[in-house]
């Protein structure tokens, strides 16, 4: 943001919506992200059904608390017939009057909220809202579209007067945006790891003359804003503690179940090393052997979504539970790639192949966007084949590339 502002003084910052977490365990992240957006000075925020997952009351309470400008032009309360949120915001950005409105899809399930809320067909809502924004003097109109790729593209093709669209809702990441009729489309900015930059050139009347878009990975070369980094760290530290406590309780329950016995189970790398000493020694020099420490350093060692790829058999028979009881199962060990040790006899007669797909279970594009199988393989292969080329920087760890 700061670096952009040194080159351009007319900058609009928006979030397209879809930022609420995927599971109830991470509910605190919802309010924290809203706080963070407020601190960043986000000009408008879109919404999707995801923002309703903790209930409309929760969303409204957080919006009231943060005063975040969330917009949606097609979500109505059935009883009153009124819009749930403001349909748009009009912002004066330097010399430009910008209208930003939001839309969500009417094809998604609202769950129990479907009894009280209704989503209007987006195209009709868009036509009406664009006309209203133009009437109010907006010379540039931006749409935050939680519609998915096809529905979003169809809409801007059908509706005149939308200068830029931020497309969201299970979107494929495209580094370069494109022009759809007269609308510049942005296809990226997901998971807090990317940011889209849409650059509009304006004519004398402050209307869009041309434009383009590009999405950037927020890699280590892009420095964190100091205040924001501190805010994130503070939240992560306290949230991690909370998760650790919950995990402890869960581990105790799981231990009871495990005690009942499971036919197959994890053994831990120390058992493998009895016969595979050379492989074990080679493994110790890999980043897989420090996978747990990287979580501790990042204060994510209480987050189950992270733990699962940094230990062996998380919450499975014989696998990692917590540091107090199963510390020996921390890190990415033999069984993470080769399977449960108790099935050893089976896979020695019919070896389980470790392929790129094995790695991709954890090295997903979301958490490991810089992962390149061919490039990374020589760093972990027991065969010692392949040239160890320098690994590119990764947003996973800024000092040195981690296991990701």
């Amino acid at each position, binding site marked *: *943001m700061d670096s952009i502002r040194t080159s351009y003084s007319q900058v609009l910052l928006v979030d397209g919506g879809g930022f609420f977490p995927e599971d109830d365990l991470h509910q605190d992240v919802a309010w924290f992200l809203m706080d963070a957006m407020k601190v960043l000075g986000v000009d408008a925020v879109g919404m999707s059904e995801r923002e309703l997952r903790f209930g409309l009351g929760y969303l409204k309470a957080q919006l009231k608390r943060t005063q975040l400008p969330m917009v949606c032009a097609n979500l109505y309360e059935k009883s009153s017939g009124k819009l749930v949120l403001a349909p748009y915001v009009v912002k004066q950005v330097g010399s430009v009057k910008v209208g930003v409105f939001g839309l969500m899809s009417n094809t998604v399930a609202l769950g129990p909220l479907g009894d009280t809320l209704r989503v209007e067909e987006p195209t009709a809502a868009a036509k009406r809202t664009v006309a209203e924004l133009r009437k109010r003097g907006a010379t540039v109109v931006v749409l935050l579209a939680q519609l998915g790729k096809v529905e979003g593209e169809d809409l801007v093709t059908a509706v005149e007067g939308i200068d830029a669209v931020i497309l969201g809702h299970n979107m494929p990441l495209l580094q370069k945006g494109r022009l759809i009729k007269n609308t510049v489309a942005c296809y990226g900015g997901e998971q807090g790891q990317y940011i889209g930059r849409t650059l509009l050139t304006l004519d004398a009347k402050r209307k*869009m003359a041309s434009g383009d878009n590009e999405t950037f990975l927020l890699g280590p070369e892009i420095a964190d804003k100091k205040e924001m980094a501190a805010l994130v760290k503070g939240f992560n530290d306290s949230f991690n503690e909370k998760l650790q406590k919950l995990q402890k309780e869960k581990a105790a329950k799981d231990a009871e179940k495990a005690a009942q016995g499971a036919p197959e189970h994890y053994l831990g790398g120390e058992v493998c090393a009895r016969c595979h000493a050379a492989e074990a020694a080679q493994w110790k020099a890999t980043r897989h052997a420090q996978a747990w420490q990287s979580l501790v350093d990042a204060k994510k060692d209480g987050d189950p979504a992270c733990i699962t790829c940094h230990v062996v058999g998380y919450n499975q028979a014989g696998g990692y539970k917590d540091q107090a009881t199963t510390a020996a199962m921390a890190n990415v060990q033999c069984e993470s790639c080769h399977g449960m040790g108790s099935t050893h006899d089976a896979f020695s007669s019919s070896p389980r192949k470790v392929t790129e797909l094995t790695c991709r279970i954890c090295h997903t594009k979301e958490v490991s966007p810089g992962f390149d199988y061919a490039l990374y393989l020589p760093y972990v292969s027991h065969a010692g084949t392949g040239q160890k080329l320098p690994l590119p920087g990764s947003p996973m760890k800024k000092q040195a590339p981690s296991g990701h």
Partner: protein
Amino acid sequence: MKTVLSRILATTLLAAIAWMLLAGASAPRGNALEPDKLVILSTVDVKGKTDPCG
């Protein structure tokens, strides 16, 4: 000797000049960097991620 009318005119003229100067100084296009550009920075589908695992 100045008439009341000329005093009023002079005062009005001064006020008008002052207003134009102030308006000019605060006009966004005056000191804008790349005044013919609008940059839209955007995130979307953050899905509850504050930062990567580690």
